[in-house]
């Protein structure tokens, strides 16, 4: 069987997820044994403008040029994977949606801002059809490999639709709320093996919210712990601002 032709592309992002892939280590040999990488800006110079079996997209869609480019990639690719928070949920680029776009452009580009069109930040699936999601900022490598295996087998991959608390509890971490620290694990999709909390950090919600969060229940919990609503909304907006676009 011929190895599938795979290309990595990046849009508005920090390219940290590409770095994660490049840093897989020994496992990268197995990955490269199963796919034929034809374009991957961070690690090789070659480009590819023909048909693709798999396009792996990092970054969010933030301007008209990006919309055009992602549509072209989608047309060339049999399968499209969005990976990283920017691509899967909009990520930190979504914070732009909080402001007037003219103000934002002036702030960033100064007087020549009119040469830099911008538009509402979108996750990749808000612009084109996405077949697989690898959430997280950055991606969690074991999950990336699992998704790659699903793609190779032609079977779906479901991002766990339950909170990070599940994995956190299995890791027997002391709950951040017991430490009197606010944590977004209660409403954020699992799949990262509670990576941040295992290392003493809180959950920032980088994997996006579960599909059916109990908003009233979550508000009651905030009241119980005397946590102001706007503090939590600010924390949520860091990664999840694009959730509001439908």
């Amino acid at each position, binding site marked *: 069987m011929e190895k599938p032709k795979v290309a990595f592309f990046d849009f508005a992002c920090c390219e940290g997820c590409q770095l994660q892939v490049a840093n897989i280590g020994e496992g990268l040999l197995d990955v490269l044994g*199963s796919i034929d990488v034809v374009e991957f800006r961070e690690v090789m110079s070659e480009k590819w403008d023909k048909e693709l079996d798999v396009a792996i997209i990092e970054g969010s869609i933030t301007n008209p040029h990006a919309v055009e480019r992602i549509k072209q990639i989608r047309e060339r690719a049999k399968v499209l994977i969005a990976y990283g928070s920017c691509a899967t949920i909009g990520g930190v680029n979504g914070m732009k949606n909080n402001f007037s776009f003219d103000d934002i452009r002036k702030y960033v580009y100064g007087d020549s801002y009119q040469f830099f069109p911008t538009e509402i930040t979108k996750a990749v699936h808000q612009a084109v059809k996405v077949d697989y999601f690898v959430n997280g900022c950055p991606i969690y490598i074991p999950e990336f490999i699992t998704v790659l*295996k699903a793609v190779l087998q032609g079977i779906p991959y479901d991002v766990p639709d339950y909170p990070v608390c599940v994995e956190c*509890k299995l890791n*027997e971490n002391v709950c951040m709320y017991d*430490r009197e620290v606010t944590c977004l694990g209660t409403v954020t999709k699992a799949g990262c093996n509670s990576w941040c909390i295992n290392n003493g950090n809180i959950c920032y919600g980088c994997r996006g919210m579960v599909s059916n969060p109990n908003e009233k*229940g979550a508000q*009651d919990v905030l009241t*119980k712990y005397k946590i102001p609503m706007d503090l939590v909304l600010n924390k949520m907006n860091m990664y999840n601002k694009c959730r509001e676009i439908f």
Partner: protein
Amino acid sequence: MYVILGKERFNDFISRLSEMRRLFAPAVLKGYNNFAFEKVTSGKEIAIKYIPTILPPKKFFIPQRETLLEFNIAQGIDAEAVVEYEPMTIFGVHTCDLAGIQCLNMVFSERPKDYNYLTRGSKIVLIGLECNEYCDEYASCNLVNATFPCGGYDLFFTDLGDYFVIHVNTRSGDEIIKEIGSFEKVDTSHINELEKLREKKRKVFGNEVPIEGKHIPELFDRSFGASVWKDLEERCLACGNCTNVCPTCYCFDIRDEVELNLESGIRYRVWYSCQLEPFAKVAGGINFRKERSARQKHRYYRKFRYPVDRFTRFFCTGCGRCTRTCMAGISLKETLNDLIKESES
């Protein structure tokens, strides 16, 4: 048979025990009044006084991820069953958690027997530890008869001040006593002290909820349509904490994972929870327990009603973990109280 272990010999006993097999015990490390069963090699690492650990000792009986099958599909299908186990000793298991393991033993002994569970369980030596007083206000062990030792252990320790009195219950327990040999014979004064403690406990531990155990099944028979479940709908965050920490919840999911070469792989099982959104989702996207209230209700019936018919016992051990861990403050005692009130109104 009973023996005595002087407290001054406890550290030596633990060190010797850890040399025999890997030894796990409630450890002091976690902080914020959180405890966990961890690997230990000395008595100093052990919290003799502890409230129920974050996860119960079921984590040793049902690993969170357990390989069941290894397969190769390069030429035809070649599959081989796998049983993973390791001899170990668990020290300091409270009576609630011993009851939990007894429940799991019953479940996994039903036909078809679960040889992965049974083989692993047969290699685990259990050393119980008596609770002289209530751990905290969340426990309801007396309601479900789990306050006093009721078998299910190899050795059982009771702290009587300067010494432990130890009940030797099995041959594995006896072998430990013989091999370590730091023990003294018990005399009537020791047994009297033990009886005194138990007598005191009978006065301290009372029914935590105003209902007799034998009436609980009827209460649940009357409560299927209770409004109490609707209230839980609004509060439950569906995080699955209550089931993950429950000593008798054993539901799992089975998955296949192939290597990147698509030739070999494993079938494994992982812990799963009826409280999670996708648990009861089936083909076609239909979810037959979509409401959180239905899922919470199911949890309570799986503790207090269904196992009574099937195993003639409750599958709640009164450890209080589900209440202690619930972010939304859903309390087992409160739910039972509310059900009683609603059924009387």
